[in-house]
Structures are given as structure tokens and as C-alpha cells.
């Protein structure tokens, strides 16, 4: 009886296997015969991945509207970290299935994608003129003299500050213009004493402020080649560490541990300044009751020769993947983000997004005042600062080096000497990146 059962089930398994194989074969024939629906051949739809519906996705939507040709365009929203995971999995699996035609990548991550997956991206030199874009955007978006990224938004930094708090402490816009970080710390002490408010909110695990400082002096964690670790003997980084410690010791730093706490720190009125990329403006404006209480000064600079009051934080660019439909996608980007000045005016007016296409900066929309910031011509100011941002090669290891630096920073704050901290970080980074 048992033996019979075994036979029967074996027969059943065999039948099932045959069925699966047959099904696979027959459907193969079908798709081979019909041809047209095959995604390998002719993509009717151009897909794009981006992450912020109020910002870069809105920009893509305006671009689609302003594009003369009739294409099927699908924008898919994904969180930025999700895009990174999806791209890494898809590209390292070697099949390009499921990948979009256009993808938005943050500039500081771009080189790691371009260098790790050399054939995955499509150069767009034939579709745009790179010289039309801010110079500092080109190094991170190109590789081996080929332009891969279409520079999109600038992460130009500004010192967002509460005019009322600063006034109470006796400071005006002029006193905050073109200052050094040392002066900023002095002002912070005064503000803290007079108003009782903290000067700045920082996340101990995110050294974004350090990157802002060192780029203002034209340096990065790596040398210009993008790979040689440059920590020990990096004078701007040294100064940045000192400034960071001085801020912590001045006791005017409100610590935050995530994005929502960071936003809450200024929405609640607890901090007096937010030195940050221009994209933080939308979050500041979200607290309507503070309208008129804010203004933006140029970002402080490091106290050394060659440092300027302009830097960059964030900012991203569009990339075309090397899959069928690439020409269509590149042409779309070239005709919109690559040359349409009117489109950029609309971008500023409707989305508040500041691109890095320089011919657009003379347009009317750039001059308009912003009531929330007391009528300041914010966009115009930002686009002036964009021109001064020093160009650096971010290389492909920014975030892994920063993890090492964050740990050493804690040691330094606890009393380790700065020389040792930087030397140890250098050694660790070199060992890790070998």
C-alpha cells in the first residue's frame, strides 16, 4: 500500500515537472513570436526614479510638460536610500531588468556608482553642453572625461538665521555676512547668553557640517584623484575639527538624533541658526508662525587663505542608464534641464528648486523677493553664491570615511589629541579602502 502511494506521488511530481517545463517553453515561443511587447526592444515608456514629490519629482513633472515631443513618461517615487539599494542590487546582479531609464543620484554618492558599474550608465555629452552648468557640479558627475550626470539642483549652503534672536543679541545681517566659523562661534556665545536659545542643532553621527566647512576651502576627505585618503595633514579638516569641538564646548548645540528632531529644533524656535543646504528652506517655511523672522546670510568660511563664504551640501544630478531607450531619455533631459531657460524660471516659481544651469540665473523669477524671509531675494543670493563654490572631487568613499571620522571625532571630544585622532583616522581609512 505504502509502495503504491510512493509510486503515485512520484508520478504526480513527474507530471508537475513536465507541466512547468512545457509552460515555460510555450510562453517563450509566444513572446518570441509577438516581439513587440518585448521590453528589450522598444520601450514605449521612459521611467525615472526620484525621491521628493515636492522637489525633484515636481521638477521632472514640469520638465515633462515643457517638453515638446510626445513621450510616455513615468516618474516613480522612491526614498533616496531605497534608490541606492535598488540600484546596487539591480546593477550588481548584472541584469538590467527593472532598472529605470533616468535616475536621480546625490552628487556625493555618484562616483561610487559610476566607478563600480562602468558600463551601466550612458554618457550624455552629445545632448548637453557641460560648460553651461556650475563648475563644481561637473567633477562628481563625470568620469574619464565623459559627462554622465545632468547637473540638477545645487546644494549651495546658506546660514539661515532667526533675525529676532540675533537682533536681541545685538547682531544684524551685516554682522553675519562673510564671517569665519570662529566669529560664528563668538556670536553663538552671545546669542546663547542673551536669549538662552541654542545656536545650532547637530546630529553627532552626521558630520555634514564638517563637509560644508572643508569644501569652502576646496578640500575633501580624499585628494583630487578621488581615491588617495587625505585626512592627516589636511589643514581645512583640522580647522573644521577644532571648530566642531569649540561649538560643542561653547554649549550652544542642541543635539538631534534624526531628521525629524533636526526639523523640530528650528520649527519649535529652539535654535537661532541653521547652516545648511538651500533645500532646508522649505522645512523652515513650514512653520508659518515664524514668517518674517528668518533671513539667510552667506555660510561662514574657515579662517585660512583660499577659503570662501560658499559651500555645498547635498545636491543631486540625473543619470541615464545604458539600457534601451537611453537616447530618448538623454534627449528628454537635454531639451529640458539642458537648455530650456524658461523651464528654469518655472522651476523657481513653482517648486522653489534652484538648478545649476548658469544661463538661467538672469531670469526674472530669480530676482523675486521671498516674504517669509523678510522680502530677501533668496534665489538671487543663492545663485550668486553658487558661482563661488569651490570644486572638489568627492571620490567614492565619502560616507565610509565619514563613519571613521565620526568615531575619531568622539575620541577627540573626549580629550584625544587632534594629531592622534587624524592620524588614526587616516590609517583606518587607508586600511579599509585598500
Amino acid at each position: 500500500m505504502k509502495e503504491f502511494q510512493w509510486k503515485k506521488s512520484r508520478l504526480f511530481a513527474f507530471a508537475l515537472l513536465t507541466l512547468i517545463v512545457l509552460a515555460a517553453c510555450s510562453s517563450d515561443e509566444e513572446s518570441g513570436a509577438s516581439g513587440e511587447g518585448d521590453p528589450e526592444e522598444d520601450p514605449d515608456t521612459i521611467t525615472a526614479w526620484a525621491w521628493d514629490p515636492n522637489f525633484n519629482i515636481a521638477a521632472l513633472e514640469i520638465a515633462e510638460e515643457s517638453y515638446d515631443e510626445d513621450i510616455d513618461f513615468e516618474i516613480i517615487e522612491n526614498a533616496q536610500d531605497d534608490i541606492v539599494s535598488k540600484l546596487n542590487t539591480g546593477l550588481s546582479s548584472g541584469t538590467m531588468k527593472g532598472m529605470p531609464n533616468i535616475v536621480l543620484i546625490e552628487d556625493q554618492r555618484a562616483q561610487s556608482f559610476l566607478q563600480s558599474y562602468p558600463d551601466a550608465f550612458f554618457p550624455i555629452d552629445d545632448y548637453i553642453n557641460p560648460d553651461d552648468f556650475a563648475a563644481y557640479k561637473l567633477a562628481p558627475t563625470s568620469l574619464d572625461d565623459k559627462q554622465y550626470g545632468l547637473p540638477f539642483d545645487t546644494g549651495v549652503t546658506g546660514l539661515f538665521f532667526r533675525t529676532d534672536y540675533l537682533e536681541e543679541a545685538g547682531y544684524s545681517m551685516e554682522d553675519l555676512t562673510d564671517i569665519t566659523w570662529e566669529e560664528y562661534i563668538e556670536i553663538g556665545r552671545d546669542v546663547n547668553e542673551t536669549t538662552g536659545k541654542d545656536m545650532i542643532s547637530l546630529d553627532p553621527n552626521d558630520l555634514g557640517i564638517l563637509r560644508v566647512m572643508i569644501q569652502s576651502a576646496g578640500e575633501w576627505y580624499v585628494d583630487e584623484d578621488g581615491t588617495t585618503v587625505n585626512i592627516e595633514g589636511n589643514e581645512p579638516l583640522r580647522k573644521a575639527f577644532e571648530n566642531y569641538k569649540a561649538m560643542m564646548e561653547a554649549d550652544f548645540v542642541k543635539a538631534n538624533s534624526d531628521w525629524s528632531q533636526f526639523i523640530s529644533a528650528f520649527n519649535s524656535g529652539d535654535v537661532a541658526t541653521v547652516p545648511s543646504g538651500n533645500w532646508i528652506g522649505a522645512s523652515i517655511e513650514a512653520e508659518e508662525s515664524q514668517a518674517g523672522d528668518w533671513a539667510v546670510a552667506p555660510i561662514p568660511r574657515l579662517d585660512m587663505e583660499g577659503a570662501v563664504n560658499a559651500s555645498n551640501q547635498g545636491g543631486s544630478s540625473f543619470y541615464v542608464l545604458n539600457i534601451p531607450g537611453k537616447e530618448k531619455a538623454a534627449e528628454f533631459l537635454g531639451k529640458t534641464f539642458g537648455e530650456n531657460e524658461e523651464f528654469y524660471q518655472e522651476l523657481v516659481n513653482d517648486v522653489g528648486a534652484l538648478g545649476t544651469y548658469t544661463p538661467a540665473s538672469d531670469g526674472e523669477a530669480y530676482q523675486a523677493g521671498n516674504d517669509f524671509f523678510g522680502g530677501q531675494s533668496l534665489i538671487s543670493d543663492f545663485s550668486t553664491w553658487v558661482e563661488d563654490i569651490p570644486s572638489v572631487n568627492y571620490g567614492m568613499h565619502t560616507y565610509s570615511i565619514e563613519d571613521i571620522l565620526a568615531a575619531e571625532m568622539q575620541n577627540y571630544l573626549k580629550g584625544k589629541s587632534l594629531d592622534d585622532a587624524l592620524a588614526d583616522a587616516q590609517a583606518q581609512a587607508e586600511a579599509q579602502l585598500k
Partner: protein
Amino acid sequence: MRKLKRIGVYIFLSIASLVSIFPFLWMIVSMTNKSVDVTQGRLLPGSYLFENLTVLFDSVNMVTALVNSTIIALITTFLTLLIGSLAGYGFEIYRTPGKDRIFNILLLSMMIPFAAIMIPLYRMFGGVSGTIPFLGIDTLAAAILPTVITAFFIFFFRQNTKMFAKELVEAGRIDGLSELGIFFRVYLPTMKTTYAAAAIIAFMNSWNNYLWPLVVLQSPENQTIPLLISNLGAGYSPDYGVIMTAIVIATLPTALVFFIMQRHFVEGMMGSMKG
């Protein structure tokens, strides 16, 4: 003295339950507040519930995501239970040479993190994309199949099968039931609580599964709830009130499944421990 001890226990338990329930309370309260209030940790209910709901349903396709998650979770739960219990039953009831060795190897597979097999899996599904209909990148089947066979559930069912009276199998055979008949008509009805416990775990795992669906599902029509919630927090200025509303809605199905099967769940878990 005894009374005092009792009071102490109650105080401790009250604090412990308050701590565990607080995130839920805060989530529900936040659902009624606007984003700025949520980030400032407001603990009082506000009047923004309706607005948050409107924004949520206007800005993202919540219904599609709910339907997708439900389909994936139900099919995954069904297949996981079927395969896991058949395998667990087989391992415990039948005598096969080398069976324990095979079982140990199977258990070892629990040690391999999913991230390690993700890229080969993606490659496999990429390979069949366009060849086999409804299977391949960006299909619900791709989100379901890799998750239905897990060493954990085979182990879980094998442990529980140890409590199952083997005499019933003999009795079934004598009465002329086929082997599959014994499984479906004798084993399955007596193991209801085990199935209930496994169903809750499988359903919750599938409902909350993030990494694999994230990688394999591309188009918005195939989006699941966790992916949708992740997208809500994607922008430079996320609306936390809306996110909380989405999370509350996403929590309801698992809470419902749990409450319906709670009694069985506890019994089932006890069973697996006794074994």
C-alpha cells in the same frame, strides 16, 4: 506583606505595559496632529485627522498598496503553511536514512542573511523576466516565491509534530487513508493551534517585509504598504502627520489577524516550546 508584594508587582506591570503601549498611543495621537506638532512631540490629540487622511489618499495610492500587501501576505501565508507543515510532518513521521543530517543542513540555511542571497535571486528573476508570464522582476509572484520556503517554519512544524500522536497515523493507514489523506484529514485538523500560530507569524513577516519587495517591485501599481510608507518619508520636508496616519492604517490588518487568532497563537507557541 504579601499584599505589599502584590502591589509592587502591579506597579511594575503597569509601568511595563505603559512603556510597551506608549509608541502605539503616540502613533494614534500623532495621526490627528499636523507635521510640525508631531516633530515637537505633542501628546494631545489634535484636529488634523481628516486633513491627514485626505492628503494621504490624495497623494499616494494607499488602496492599491493595501490590496497588493493583502494579496502577497495571504498567498505567502497559505503557501508557507502548506509547504512548511508538509515538510515538518515528513521529517518527523517518516523514516528516511540521513534525514537528521539533511534537517541540520536545512537549519544551517537559517544562518545565511537574506542580503547575501538577494543579488543572485534578483539575477534569477531577471533571467525569467519576459520569458515566463507573471514571473520575473516587478511581479507579485517574485515578491512571494522566495519567502514561502523557510527553514524556520519547517523547524516550527517539526517541533510541534513531536506532540502529535503517531498512533493516529497508524490508525489512518489501517482505515485505508492515503498518506496525503492522513495529512489533510487527520494531522491538519488536530494541529489547528500550530497552524494558527504559524499563520500569524507568516502573515506578519510578509506584511512587514521590506527589503526584498523593495528591490524586486518597481512600478507603483505593485507597491506594498512598507514601501509606500518609506516613500512618504522620502522628501526633504516629510509630513509626519500623514506618515503616522499611514502607519496606523498599515498596522490595523496585523493587529486584526493577531486579535482573531490570539488564543490559538499562545497555545501554538506553548506547544512549540514543550516539544
